[in-house]
């Protein structure tokens, strides 16, 4: 509550970070962590056989990976930081405090990885003597190693957000890193990245070797062997990962797979996921056995399918940890679990540094006696709801209530529901404020439904310092000085 809140009311804050983060994961896993070892292996194979066609193929695949990772990959990598800091500064602040040295190490490894990947790619055509070629191949494996280490560090943080484990009592970096989900998630993501790379490389190989059919078959056979080998390990890692996910999170899977409206389709969707994964695997299998029977469009379809599956996995992972953004420590609205008793007693508004005044559009037609209450309701909405919900956009709070109450919107009815919503929907955090704020929020929601006005974030309409928070801070300061004098 100490930061002015950015808010995207049309597509929602979640969608922004979901798009940026998923894109980054796809590039990081499929074109860096998994791809560089595969490319280096192909290059090594070319050197051992003395067949230059392998080297050319590896170079072309690396060219695609290099361009995408150093442009979209790098931008989305920085973009995740920007989005996370804008959308949930409290969560990112807490994570930085816990993982400061881990992130610092990751930054050093990342810089090394970027330097190595530049050296690896730019020296490809220059280091052609046997000794230099061997060194070049070693560079390739080193890039792969560094990419994996960056992923391994970030996975520790992602796993921590799901289940901090003993960190909740010990509060040390070591206990944060050694959380219960870390190794299982790493054991899943590592072969997943290698499998994805194989599927991407199969499509690229089918494109790059069109003019040499005999080599194309040999190359496709070799490249398809890669996912054929790694996919079973991905399944084994996935099994381990699924087995350590807490029960409360597993209960969220139904909603996480699609949306609340499609909860009952959970079984069908899971069957679809299994069938898609099986078809992907069969394509790789046929690609090894009879490469010429697999058309290029099948590799392209496999590529799209693996993008879809990975995107879906990331969505589920992000959603199931709700109502928390950091398991058992911080709710998705950015308020710490430990602060709830204080906020329930004093109210949210007393501890919110900023308030979000009503805009001109919101003010029009409102009776003067309702203005203060609506203004309070807006600030409560921004602090407690807006990290996940929009007013009338994606995941609209108005649409949610309309689906439940249809025409009968009464402040008391809404307030009663909000008080108990975390029991009905376990992925919702409890309401953090007091009863007066609850009624103010209900009033504001009714106003949102009536006017259909968008709620603009601090980036558009700015914020104002909250006088109640200033008073509270002064009182606290006075109390402290009084105690000091005693």
């Amino acid at each position, binding site marked *: 509550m100490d930061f002015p809140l950015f808010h995207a009311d049309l597509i929602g804050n979640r969608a922004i970070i979901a798009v940026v983060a998923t894109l980054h994961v796809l590039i990081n896993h499929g074109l860096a962590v998994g791809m560089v070892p595969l490319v280096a*292996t192909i290059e*090594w*194979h070319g050197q*051992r*056989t003395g*067949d230059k066609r392998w080297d050319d193929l590896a170079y072309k695949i690396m060219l695609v990976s290099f361009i995408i990772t150093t442009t979209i990959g790098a931008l989305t990598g920085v973009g995740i930081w920007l989005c996370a800091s804008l959308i949930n500064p409290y969560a990112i602040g807490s994570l930085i405090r816990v993982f400061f040295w881990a992130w610092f190490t990751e930054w050093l490894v990342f810089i090394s990885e970027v330097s190595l990947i530049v050296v690896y790619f730019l020296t490809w055509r220059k280091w052609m003597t046997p000794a230099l070629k061997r060194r070049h191949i070693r560079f390739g494996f080193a890039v792969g190693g560094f990419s994996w280490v960056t992923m391994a560090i970030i996975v520790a943080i992602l796993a921590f957000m799901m289940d901090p484990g003993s960190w909740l009592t010990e509060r040390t970096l070591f206990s944060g890193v050694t959380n219960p989900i870390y190794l299982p998630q790493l054991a899943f993501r590592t072969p997943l990245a290698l499998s994805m790379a194989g599927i991407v490389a199969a499509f690229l190989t089918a494109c790059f070797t069109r003019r040499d059919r*005999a080599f194309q*078959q*040999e190359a496709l*056979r*070799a490249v398809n*062997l890669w996912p*054929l*080998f790694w996919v*079973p390990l991905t399944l084994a890692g996935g099994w381990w990962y699924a087995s350590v996910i807490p029960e409360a999170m597993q209960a969220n899977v139904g909603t996480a797979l699609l949306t609340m409206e499609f909860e009952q389709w959970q079984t069908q969707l899971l069957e679809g996921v299994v069938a898609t994964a099986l078809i992907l695997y*069969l394509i790789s*299998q046929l690609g*090894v*056995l*009879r490469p010429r029977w697999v058309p290029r469009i099948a590799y392209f379809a496999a590529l799209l399918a693996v993008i879809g599956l990975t995107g879906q996995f990331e969505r589920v992972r992000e959603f199931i940890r709700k109502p928390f953004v950091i398991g058992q420590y911080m709710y998705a609205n950015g308020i710490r679990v430990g602060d709830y008793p204080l906020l329930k007693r004093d109210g949210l508004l007393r501890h919110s540094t900023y308030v979000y005044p009503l805009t001109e559009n919101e003010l029009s037609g409102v009776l003067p006696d309702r203005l203060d209450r609506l203004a309070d309701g807006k600030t409560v909405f921004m602090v407690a709801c807006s990290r996940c919900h929009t007013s009338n956009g994606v995941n609209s709070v108005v649409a949610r209530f309309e689906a439940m109450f249809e025409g009968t919107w009464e402040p008391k009815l809404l307030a009663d529901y909000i008080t108990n919503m975390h029991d009905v929907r376990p992925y919702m955090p409890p309401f953090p404020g007091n009863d007066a704020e609850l009624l103010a929020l209900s009033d504001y929601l009714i106003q949102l439904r009536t006017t259909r006005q968008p709620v603009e974030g601090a980036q558009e309409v700015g914020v104002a310092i909250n006088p109640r928070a200033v008073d509270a801070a002064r009182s606290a300061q006075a109390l402290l000085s009084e105690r000091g004098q005693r």
Partner: protein
Amino acid sequence: MFDPIAAHEASPGPMSVPPAGHGLSLRQWAVINIALAGLLMILGGGTPLPTLVGAVTVVLAAATGALNAWRRVMTIGSGRPHRGILDLLLAYDILLTWFPGFVALCLAALAVVALTLWPDDAWLRLGAIAMFAYQIGVIAALDDLSGLERATANRHT
């Protein structure tokens, strides 16, 4: 330079010749046997018979496949000096010889397990039997996988 794929395309594989009895090739016999096993499994319905047929077929395919793969591995790289345990070509050839068959066996076995786990789901049964038949077909076709040709190539070079 010797091209193993072209050599394979040009040469009659062990599955395509010689014609066995009654004028059918080994490949044709394999297809007939797999089709018959699949039909038996479909007609067997929910009884233990389909599982038994599937299990016996998987065991036989595993034994035959292992024997063929072993023979092939024994010839890999026999014509050139080895470069220690990290010999990539050797590792690749061995993986290419063993792994696709191993995967096919696992998938065929999984299909048989699916038959026992969901005996009442007609669509799943049909899917499992189709997967089983496909994977057994894959094992039968593995005989002419490039490992053999590559080994031959290595011997020739």
